[in-house]
């Protein structure tokens, strides 16, 4: 009979490795660690933070080497949320790809959708045929999304340093934003609303009134964040000079978005390489000069005001656009997504069914061909980058002339910005790691895809 070994019998068993003597500490075993270290102990503790730690923003694993409370080395372990979205997109048609990519950076779904659709439209050569109303709706949704995304960043960032009120009010305002998303797209997340050629649906009745109510609400409640945080000594003590990364570091590491703008450089693709008609809106690019977590917070706070300004301008434009088309006129591209609420709930629009079944043979053929086969995109590649709440979101699309993407690659800003984690954290205290990571605002759905 073989002797079975209790794996928990010998706590803190010492092992000799190339790095020296290593103990795996499980708790309540400090005596054996101390005695095992001998007379001249070398104290080097490697702490594994995450992947399930609540303040690592999803399933992010931080590997910290600490000396007392000080972090001497830090590394990221990612990939825990890798779901193979890019690979999956190669097996669905171009329009279905929207449903996949919206799930990448789940706090900024409209940005994923827009970037992907803009790349398809460039390959199709229909960039200048997108109806004006579709562009305004895209801008509206993206800017609302910037507000909701920044709110989550500020709210969870506040919660992690103990500012619970910032969290509760942050999610309160985010809820108002998601209500608007639900009204306009039908869903709070994972909308798949922005489609190649335009958007899926026209603005529903009463949406403009709701948007105006929302603007009034935000004008009343957005100042609360500044009042709670901007001059709050505890908040400032936790954020100021934490996670410092200057412009040189940002450029070397390819950092974009609020961390770059907090370092004083106002790079914003909405201004430098406008898309969706951003050049026609009046807004500013806020910057800050401290290059620390506090600066990033202030930049985000100010960006929400700028986004609200754009939302207001969109609402004014949409008020004059009633009944205009929201999908490209080319019937061989525009997905037949006409829906209507009937007696038995949401379903295909009866008008559309009447049109294809009773009035137009061509409409029926287009509907059938699009839904079964999809449209073909000329072979080639395109790279489109837009300014997401976290920085440059780039889409590299390769088409082989077929009905599906040959390759879709997303350059997610969370992924690129997270590379700065070690330089932000090394030399600081463990508690500052939380603040520094939160100031980058990584969303693991986007990092791992």
């Amino acid at each position, binding site marked *: 009979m073989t002797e079975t070994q209790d794996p928990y019998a010998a706590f803190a068993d010492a092992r000799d490795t190339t790095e020296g003597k290593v103990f795996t500490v499980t708790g309540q075993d400090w005596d054996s660690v101390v005695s095992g270290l001998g007379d001249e102990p070398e104290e080097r503790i490697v702490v594994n933070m995450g992947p399930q730690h609540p303040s690592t923003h999803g399933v992010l694993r931080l590997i910290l080497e600490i000396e007392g409370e000080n972090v001497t080395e830090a590394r990221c372990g990612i*990939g825990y949320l890798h779901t193979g979205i890019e690979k999956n997109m190669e097996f669905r048609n171009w329009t279905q790809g929207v449903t996949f990519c919206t799930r990448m950076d789940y706090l900024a779904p409209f940005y994923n959708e827009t970037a992907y659709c803009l790349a398809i439209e460039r390959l199709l050569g229909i960039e200048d045929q997108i109806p004006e109303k579709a562009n305004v709706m895209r801008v509206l949704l993206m800017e609302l999304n910037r507000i909701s995304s920044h709110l989550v960043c500020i709210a969870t960032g506040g919660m992690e340093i103990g500012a619970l009120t910032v969290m509760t009010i942050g999610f309160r305002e985010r809820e108002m934003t998601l209500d608007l998303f639900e009204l306009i797209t039908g869903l709070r997340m994972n909308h798949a609303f922005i489609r190649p050629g335009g958007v899926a649906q026209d603005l529903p009745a009463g949406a403009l009134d709701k948007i105006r109510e929302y603007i009034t609400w935000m004008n009343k409640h957005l100042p609360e964040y500044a009042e709670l945080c901007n001059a709050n000594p505890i908040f400032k003590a936790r954020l100021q000079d934490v996670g410092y990364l200057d412009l040189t570091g940002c450029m070397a590491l*390819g950092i974009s978005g609020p961390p770059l703008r907090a370092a004083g450089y106002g790079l914003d693709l909405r201004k430098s390489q406008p898309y969706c008609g951003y050049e026609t809106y009046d807004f500013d690019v806020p910057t800050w000069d401290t290059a620390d977590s506090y600066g990033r917070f202030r930049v985000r706070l100010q960006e929400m005001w700028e986004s609200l300004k754009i939302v207001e301008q969109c609402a004014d434009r949409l008020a004059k656009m009633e009944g205009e088309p929201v999908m490209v006129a080319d019937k061989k591209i525009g997905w037949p997504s006409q829906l209507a609420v009937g007696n038995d709930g949401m379903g295909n629009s009866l008008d559309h069914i009447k049109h294809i079944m009773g009035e137009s043979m061509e409409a029926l053929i287009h509907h059938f061909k699009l839904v079964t086969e999809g*449209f073909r995109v000329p072979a080639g590649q395109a790279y489109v980058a837009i300014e997401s709440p976290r920085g440059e979101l780039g889409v590299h699309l390769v088409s082989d002339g077929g009905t599906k993407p040959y390759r879709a690659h997303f350059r997610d800003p969370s992924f690129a910005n997270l590379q700065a984690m070690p330089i932000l954290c090394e030399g600081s205290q463990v508690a500052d790691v939380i603040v520094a990571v939160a100031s980058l605002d990584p969303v693991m759905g986007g990092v791992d895809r």
Partner: protein
Amino acid sequence: MSDHQPENLPATTPGGDARTPAAEVVDQREGMFGVRGTGDTSGFGGLRRQVALPGGSAKPYGGWFDGATEKLDSLVGDGAIEKVVVAHGELTLHVARERLVEVAQHIRDDADLRFEFCSGVSGVHYPNETGRELHAVYHLLSITHNRRIRLEVSCPDTDPHIPSIVSVYPANDWHERETWDFFGIVFDGHPALTRIQMPDDWPGHPQRKDYPLGGIDVEYKGAVIPPPDTRRSYN
């Protein structure tokens, strides 16, 4: 058959002007719906479709493309830039892989080029492009001049090595690890080329075209739906 334009392809394919790139065939597709080894009664089995990507463009390229490529040519000399492709208003430079680091260094440091921001690298697998199966595609942004450029480097599947440009663009660290992870391209000179998304002991490189998507049959009331990569589909 190759000059046949599928009827649902929008009529926006570039016309016959001088700058239209000559197409470069990278693949040949046969049949439709992915039907294999069964009696074809539909007639679709006879379809032949060439996959032709935009090929090399002739000068002038238009806009700032001419000045930038001439400047780069004068800096790196012959043999570094194999081909220049202008399509969809984007400039692609195909770079010889042994000259990549040199090209990247010049493209970053020269005041007239100054592509200081690297948006990372993305891999593409063309299994039927013999000798050039694996492509690494770099997207660069010049904030100074507000321009974008694409560098494309290829390597054969049998020798999947491309020099790392992390020494020039530190931002490319994780991107190269990701491309190694998904495509198996070895970036020589990378400080720590390890898997980043897949587990360390994962076999294979998932984004390659010969790597299956996976998935299982789903049965519902007797009917079986195969996983997406084995379903019939248009090709």
